[in-house]
Structure formats: structure tokens, C-alpha cells
């Protein structure tokens, strides 16, 4: 059992290789319940180099989350192609972990059980999975809480569990959909620091969707601004702040950070305003 798991793990890594993420001409349309066509994404071209941390910002409803589900293979594009590691995505993309805005922890499993899910689903023996999970629970600072159930934890602690559960499979791609959106400002800052620390150890390619431009700049190598719906890539900014970044609370006051923030916000603001006007007029964004 354990050796099958290890073999599978190696195969996944070899298959994905460097795990470059590429979207070429991706369009996604949905049929609304009313029967009309709704275009969420139009002609998205985007390349994320292996090991890069890419943040995606844009107004509400611009298809940021849809992009993530297509990279994960949970959804298909209506036109265009998504490929990971040079291979077109068809079916669930192997070597991926997804962190949702609402935490996707199983309420009937303990912290340890939830973190162990990745290896268990991968076919690891229970003992091995638990040993790995114990290690990851410790790494996210939750030692001693292994036997707690999710409802007994605070929002920040649940995020740590989600983070451990996402990283335990050593993904080559980490997809995050506003993972810290529901947290208070202090907890969010702590979690961001922790995410950076863990990411710098393993360096998976990351797509991090957020509303918060400061968060995006503090964390990412590359910030993608999307237009108001139908979403498409408006501009891509390279964030040349040196790594390791250190505390996200402090980097915000660096002159280069402010300069980048100023520049990107100018671009993002137009889209946010466009989206706002549209919603205010009652149109679908």
C-alpha cells in the first residue's frame, strides 16, 4: 500500500514536471437559470512560470474563481485550452491542492483526520497517513489539537488545518480562492506570513485569488489585474520586492511597495468602478 503511494507520488511529480500553468484563449460561458448565455471569462491568456506565486485581483464577478476551477480540472473551458506542465487539462489535474474561501473541512473528522485525507485518498496506509498528518499539524502550529473537531476551532485555526491539508500532498500547484477573506485583519496577516513561510520551503506554483490588493502585492511575484465581467486579463505586473519578504505587515511601508500599489491600483480602480456602476444599474456583472 505504502509503496504504491510513493510510486504514485513520484509519477505525479515526474508527469507534471515543473508545473507551468498556461491558459490560452480561455473563454467560459454559462447558461443562466433564466436560459440566457452568460460569459464569465473571455479570451484569457496567462502563463504562470513554475514555482511562481501569482495573485489575481479584479472586481467581484470577473471570473477569478472560475479560472481556478478550470486549472484544477473541476470545470472545462467553453473555448481555448488550459494546460498544466505542458499537458492539456482533462479531468482532475494531478498534483493540485485547492483552498476555498469557505473552509472545506469535513466536520465529522478530527483535525488529524482532515489533514490525513490527502495521503488517504492517494492510497497511503492509515498509519503512514496519520504520521504525515501529525507532522503537518505541528508545522502549522496546531500540535495538541489533533483530536479536536473543526467546530471546536477558531476561524484562524480552521484555516491552518486547511493549509496543512492542502500542503500535505506536496502539490506542484496550489490554488487559493480568497482563502483568508473571512478572517479578521490581524489573523489574516499572521496566516499570510505563515503561508509565505511554508510556500518558500516547497515552492509550488500558486494562483491566489483575492480582493485585497495589498495582500496580493505583499505575497506574490506577479499580480494579474482582471477586467470587470466578462473577465479577461487587463495587465500583469511583476512584483520585484526581494524574497524572503518577511512580515507582510511591515512590507506595506516600503517605498517600492507603495509605488507598485499606486501603479496597480490605478489600473484596478477603473475596473472596480466599472463593475460597481454596472451593479448599481442592476445589470449582471
Amino acid at each position, binding site marked *: 500500500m505504502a509503496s504504491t503511494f510513493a510510486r504514485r507520488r513520484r509519477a505525479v511529480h515526474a508527469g507534471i514536471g515543473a508545473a507551468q500553468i498556461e491558459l490560452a484563449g480561455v473563454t467560459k460561458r454559462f447558461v443562466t437559470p433564466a436560459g440566457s448565455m452568460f460569459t464569465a471569462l473571455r479570451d484569457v491568456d496567462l502563463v504562470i512560470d513554475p514555482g511562481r506565486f501569482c495573485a489575481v485581483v479584479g472586481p467581484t464577478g470577473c471570473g477569478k474563481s472560475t479560472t481556478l*476551477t478550470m486549472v*484544477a*480540472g*473541476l470545470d472545462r473551458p467553453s473555448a481555448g485550452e488550459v494546460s498544466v506542465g505542458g499537458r492539456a487539462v482533462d479531468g*482532475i*489535474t*494531478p498534483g*493540485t*491542492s*485547492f483552498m*476555498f474561501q*469557505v473552509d*472545506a473541512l*469535513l*466536520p*465529522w*473528522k478530527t483535525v488529524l483526520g482532515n489533514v490525513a*485525507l*490527502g495521503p*488517504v*485518498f*492517494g492510497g497511503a496506509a492509515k498509519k503512514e497517513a496519520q504520521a504525515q498528518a501529525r507532522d503537518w499539524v505541528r508545522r502549522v502550529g496546531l500540535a495538541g489539537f489533533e483530536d479536536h*473537531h473543526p*467546530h*471546536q476551532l477558531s476561524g484562524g485555526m480552521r484555516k491552518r488545518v486547511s493549509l496543512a*491539508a492542502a500542503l500535505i*500532498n506536496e502539490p506542484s500547484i496550489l*490554488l487559493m480562492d480568497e482563502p483568508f477573506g473571512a478572517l479578521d485583519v490581524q489573523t489574516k496577516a499572521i496566516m499570510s506570513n505563515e503561508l509565505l513561510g511554508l510556500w518558500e520551503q516547497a515552492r509550488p506554483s500558486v494562483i491566489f485569488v483575492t480582493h485585497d490588493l495589498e495582500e496580493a502585492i505583499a505575497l506574490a511575484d506577479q499580480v494579474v489585474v482582471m477586467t470587470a465581467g466578462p473577465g479577461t486579463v487587463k495587465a500583469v505586473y511583476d512584483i520585484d520586492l526581494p524574497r524572503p519578504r518577511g512580515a507582510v505587515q511591515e512590507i506595506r511601508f516600503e517605498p517600492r511597495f507603495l509605488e507598485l500599489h499606486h501603479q496597480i491600483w490605478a489600473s484596478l480602480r477603473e475596473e472596480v468602478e466599472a463593475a460597481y456602476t454596472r451593479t448599481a444599474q442592476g445589470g449582471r456583472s
Partner: protein
Amino acid sequence: MTETTGSALISPHTETQAAAPDVRHAKRRRSRHKVLVWAARLATLVVVIGGWQLLTSAKVVDKFFWGQPSGIVAQLDDWVRHGTAYGSIWLQIWTTFKEAVLGFVFGVAAGVIVGVLLGQFRFLAEVLSPYIKIANAIPRIVLGSLFTVALGLGISAKVSLAAVLVFFVVFFNAFQGVREVDRNLLNNARVLGASRGAITRHVVLPSALTWIIASLHVAFGLAIIGAIVGEFLGAQRGLGLVIATSQNNFNPDGVFAAMFIIAILALTAEGLIGLLERRLLSWRPPSPAEAAEAAAA
């Protein structure tokens, strides 16, 4: 415990001590409330049973039709000492209980399996849904006649009827439970590489379990009804047969006595299901109602 109320010298230390009498006071009030509730319960019982006894003794109500509490007690006593026309009362209880439990087990198993299957395979659910609706609209208790003719006077006809009654309740809950599974949980499991079987085992079933267990309380009541009605329709032993015989002999006390025994059976089963529920769903946070109950206890 120092008495500090009214003292001008309240330090933080004495303040914590002063809180203790408050706690004791709250505890005393709570236990007084409990005694009151029990007293009122007892009074209700005395009024209902006593009133019944008095009204029948005073011949306001005819005990020939409506029975009498003292007659019911005498009937139970007689059954325990001398047995029924079909053997000892314990044999009758055991027979009905066995039929209900077997029907319950088969009905629950079938309901869960079919519910989970249809919940996961949309196409199958779409194809079968009108037939299931029709089957649910049929008064299934009538199937008892069919089972009695086809399967005879033995236990299998009663078990089948009980199982059919149980099946639909559990099936609908299991089906709904599977469909209500959080999409985020499913997607997360899929991205982590879970196979279809693993998703069913780790995500779908535990999630549907809340729904399934809620249906078990109703289901056991239905299993007992199935067993009793099956015995009405034709049997060689069982509490349903005892009731039917009492009815034919114009013996209302016998009907009530059997009813009383069945109620005890049902309450026992209910208690066991409650225990199971608490064990299987121990991961759940206490619901507001449960929390209030715990506070009142």
C-alpha cells in the same frame, strides 16, 4: 466563604469569593425548577388516570367500551401469571419485537443503499423518480394483505410489511442527504485525488448520516406498526394477534394493556436509537435546543 456584601472593603480577591453564593443560588433555583416539573408531570398522570378510573367507576363512561385502569392492570397481571391464549406473554412480545427489528434492519439497509445510489447517479434518479412517487402514494399498509396471502402466517409476511414501511422513510432521507452534500467538500475531495468510492465513504455517507439518523426515529415506529398490522391480518402469535383477540372478545382492557406493552417497546427502541445517534454524530456541535437542555439539567 466570607460574607462581603455591603462591606466597603471589596478587593478583587473577595470579589471572586462573593461570586460563589451566586452560583449556589442559581443551582438551588435550577433544582427547585426540576422538582416542580416532576411534580407537575406526576399530577398530570394522576389526573388523567384517576379521572378515567373515577368516571368509569361512577358509570359516567361505560367501562365495557372504554376500559378501566384497574382492569388494565389486572389484565397485565393475568397475562404475566397465566399467559395468553397463544402462550406466555413474553413469547408474544418477543415475536412482535423480532418482527419489528428484522423489518427495521432490512428496511433501513435497503433504504440507505438505494437512497445513496440514486442520490449519486442522477440519470438513475431521473428515470426512477415518477415510479418512486407513485409507490410512495400507494397506501402500502394494504400490501400486508398481499404478503399474508403470499408468505403465509409466519414471521416473513410481518417482516416484509415492516420493511416496506421503513424503506420509504429512510430512502427519502438518505436520497435527500446525499444531494445536500456541500459542493465544496466534494470538490475538495476530488482535487485531493479521491476515487468515487473514497468520496462516498469519507464525504457522502457521513454527510447523509445526519439525515438518515433523523429518519430512524420515525422508522422504528413504522416497523412496529408494520408488525402489528401484519399480525392483525393473520398470525399464530404476537401482540397484534392478542389485540385482535381482545377486540373480538369485547375486552377493551386487553387492547389497552397490549397498547401499553407496545408503547414500552417503542420507547426502549427510541432510547437505543438515541444512544446510537449520540455515538455516530458525536462530532456535531450541540444544537441550540440541546444546549438549552443541557443548561436546564
